[in-house]
């Protein structure tokens, strides 16, 4: 391959959004019917491109290799003799079925993405008022309850920045299990504030699932450790009664 062709490939590689995109390009370039892909030809061309990337020392995402393996696998399956009696599920037997489905779906969304991009975009095709409001109407006394507009992503982002700023490793781990217990901790504390004291059975309530019992027990242990509640038992195996550690 000459220099010019190499450059051509290099430029093209940059514009592929992944193995499916590359395959769609090859299908279009060869004017192939997507429902009847000549797998040998496409596999050959696909691998050719991959080697091109390699020779140019460009980064290659692992997905391209997975697709190469898939193509080779389909190609080998296509070489196997086809069972004689035609059945209704023949299409499912076509080794290309999954790939075709995937390609069609990807093509659909690629077009949907292009359509989205063609819409009049805010800050590109249309613009809205950007002036701040005059101060006298910006500030007004609110009697209604304030609405808050903030996303969960912003919340974790804030936490992330905080953690990276102070570099506290022990803050890094957020355990989903622990958060489940925290839910119960909040619930226990809320009920204790209301009821003043509760037995373990009362705390578990109706939902006597194994998970709920364990989590409630862990929550109580945690609360005792945090010195937020006190637990008393009148006798061994007796009723456990918990109180807020400090009267509110």
């Amino acid at each position: 391959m000459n220099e010019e062709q190499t450059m051509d490939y290099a430029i093209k590689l940059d514009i592929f959004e992944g193995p499916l995109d590359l395959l769609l390009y090859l299908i279009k370039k060869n004017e192939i019917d997507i429902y009847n892909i000549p797998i040998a030809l496409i596999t050959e061309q696909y691998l050719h491109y991959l080697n091109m990337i390699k020779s140019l020392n460009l980064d290659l995402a692992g997905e391209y290799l997975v697709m190469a393996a898939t193509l080779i696998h389909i190609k080998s399956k296509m070489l196997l003799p086809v069972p004689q009696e035609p059945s209704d599920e023949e299409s499912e037997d076509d080794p290309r079925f999954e790939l075709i489905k995937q390609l069609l779906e990807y093509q659909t969304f690629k077009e949907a993405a292009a359509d989205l991009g063609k819409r009049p975009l805010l800050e590109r095709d249309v613009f809205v008022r950007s002036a701040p409001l005059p101060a006298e109407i910006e500030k007004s006394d609110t009697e209604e309850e304030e609405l808050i507009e903030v996303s969960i992503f912003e919340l974790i982002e804030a936490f992330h920045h905080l953690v990276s700023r102070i570099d506290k490793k022990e803050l890094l781990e957020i355990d989903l299990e622990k958060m489940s217990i925290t839910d119960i901790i909040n619930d226990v504390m809320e009920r204790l504030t209301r009821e003043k004291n509760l037995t373990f059975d009362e705390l578990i309530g109706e939902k006597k699932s194994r998970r709920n019992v364990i989590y409630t027990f862990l929550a109580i242990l945690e609360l005792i450790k945090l010195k937020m509640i006190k637990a008393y038992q009148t006798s061994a195996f007796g009723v456990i009664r918990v109180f807020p550690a400090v009267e509110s």
Partner: protein
Amino acid sequence: MENIQAIIEALVLVSEAPLTLEKICAVLEEVEKSQVKDALDKLIAEYEERQSGICLQEVAGGYQFRTRTELANWVKKLKGSKPASLSPASLETLAIVAYRQPIVKAEIESIRGVDVSAPLRGLLDKKLVRIVGRKDVPGKPMIYGTTRKFLEVFNLKDLSELPTLRELKELNQSQENIEDIPSS
């Protein structure tokens, strides 16, 4: 009471985000919802007819004044800044989230055939996509959906205004087509 249309114009102008019909009605307590809607439709038509540089548009479930698309170049000349556009990777990821929401990352990746961490992250940063919850399956993966800002940015009234997936129909028919494939 002053002219309803005038009041609506003022309310829409000062609103930071597209102003919903409900909010307008909440301000204009004594006016029927249908009357408010009529006034809005009339206003839209008037701005249209006048060939004004701004138009009243229904977007993201509300109403907002926007510049006319034909004038984009003049506005850009004033603003001087080139808008950051979305990369094809981001657009594809966004399209999948928009049409398939609620969706988990693995599903997006299976459609695109590539890792979508980076574009997904970018879309979250741009507030076009948000985390809507977790799926109750092992690993509790996060579920993504589009935001109201997505509607605002793409000039959509609501999600139903998204063009239907043209090829998707074909895809459903493809089952039959594939059955016609000659076994080679």
